[in-house]
């Protein structure tokens, strides 16, 4: 497969980024030290170029119907300027992708999907579109910068007249940003440290990136790679598609019951309804290591007697806690908070404790 390039790839190389392939794109993984980048976002402010993410515009009289039919959250509850976390669900109740749904106005929605799933999602939506909605894949034309951290509002306010402080979590405005019109300024993110996501025309990417970096100088802003993006989201217990979510796991198993609304009908709803009534047999949990060791994806989770009870889906050293942390699927009977479990690291069981999410 041909390696795809985000518009600012060369900018990142010049900033000293280590580039690696992620979801078919050459992406900045880290610029300096992952731990330093992680702490920069927790304590100050960082900017991520996540332009690999996919954006589909869904418009027309059937737009809401298509979204309602293919996703598990209830998009009819959205007001203009509001965003919602949701999942596309397959006929078996599994998760095709997790996404954000933005209601721009009536009959006018933007969905933001994972880069690795753009083709799969696009095909699925078109297949399910018996509602006459108009679908437009804007992915190559939109750049997405996430500016995250406690100083994000201060950093960005000088570049826009949109009042950032009063922009509530999971709401957005469309306005002029750094002289560029029609930028979606969204109070969302994937770090748990607050901040904004900016959707802008790809042709203005360099101008906006440079303006933010210039403004950020006095706030200690740094560019942050995908490596720290992953450790930041893991500390907060946010799921990563391909790790913690897949076509074979359901939103109920993934702890996403809160976005699964049976008040409407959607693909897979009957299966999920049955699962809700009959109970789930495995569940996504978070854990921290009691003894020294770092959990990694696909490591086995064992009980005290050494029997396999689950599998790690995400794991890392936590930069904030200084110990190993992870998430994984575990048999429901073993999934209680504070339960002792063992992660099999290089053929040795290492003790861990199930913790309520977020871990930090």
């Amino acid at each position, binding site marked *: 497969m041909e390696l795809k390039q985000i518009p600012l790839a060369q900018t990142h190389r010049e900033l000293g980024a280590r580039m690696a392939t992620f979801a078919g794109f050459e992406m900045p993984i*880290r610029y300096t*030290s*992952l*731990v330093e980048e992680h702490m920069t976002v927790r304590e100050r402010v960082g900017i991520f170029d996540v332009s690999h993410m996919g954006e589909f515009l869904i418009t027309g009289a059937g737009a809401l119907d298509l979204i309602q039919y293919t996703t598990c959250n209830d998009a009819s509850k959205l007001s203009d300027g509001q965003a919602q976390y949701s999942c596309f669900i397959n006929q078996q109740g599994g998760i095709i992708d997790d996404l954000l749904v933005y209601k721009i106005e009536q009959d006018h929605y933007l969905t933001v999907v994972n880069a690795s799933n753009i083709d799969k999602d696009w095909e699925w939506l078109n297949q399910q579109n018996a509602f006459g909605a108009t679908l437009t894949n804007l992915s190559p034309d939109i750049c997405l910068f996430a500016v995250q951290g406690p100083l994000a509002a201060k950093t960005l306010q000088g570049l826009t007249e949109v009042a950032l402080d009063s922009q509530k979590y999971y709401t957005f405005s469309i306005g002029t940003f750094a002289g560029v019109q029609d930028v979606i300024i969204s109070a969302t993110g994937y770090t748990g440290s607050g901040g904004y996501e900016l959707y802008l025309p790809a042709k203005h990417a360099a101008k906006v990136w440079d303006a933010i970096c210039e403004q950020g100088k006095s706030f200690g802003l740094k560019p942050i790679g995908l*490596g720290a993006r*992953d*450790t930041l989201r893991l500390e907060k217990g946010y799921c990563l598609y391909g790790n913690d979510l897949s076509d074979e796991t359901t939103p109920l198993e993934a702890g996403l019951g809160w976005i699964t609304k049976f008040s409407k009908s959607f693909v897979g709803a009957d299966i999920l309804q049955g699962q809700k009534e009959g109970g789930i047999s495995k569940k996504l949990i978070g854990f921290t290591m009691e003894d*020294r*060791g*770092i959990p*990694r994806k696909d490591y086995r989770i064992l009980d005290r007697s050494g029997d396999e009870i689950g599998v790690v889906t995400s794991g*890392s*050293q936590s*930069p904030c806690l200084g110990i190993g942390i992870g998430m994984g699927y575990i048999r429901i009977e073993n999934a209680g908070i504070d339960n002792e479990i063992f992660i099999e690291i*290089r053929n040795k069981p290492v003790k861990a404790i199930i913790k309520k999410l977020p871990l930090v």
Partner: protein
Amino acid sequence: MNIPEDLKYTKDHEWVRISEDGQTALIGITDFAQQELGDIVYVEIETEGEDIAGGEIFGTVEAVKTVSDLFMPLNGTVIEVNEDLEQSPEAVNEDPYGKGWMIKIQLQDADQSNLIDHQQYASLIGS
């Protein structure tokens, strides 16, 4: 990229400092290796006292995002492990050829056929 001229290297990105009497050697990972790995958070070596053949695994180094095996450069016995790395694994990033050393071995024989010199190592990593 720091590649000291007085050390020997392996293709697995380890360095070897053989003592003057040729009986023992200090082993660690190269500057290139630590840069590739990123922030090192755990060095696990539980082979102290063991005889290990060249090419076999003597330990594991964990960075935040990756885990990598450590390979014995020579046939030998692990006679000492750098205990300071337990508390300060970041020493491998900060001083890979000094405070970041990992093990001391007693050589079992004179076979050094797996080792390369600094120039060969530099060309291996394209430096």
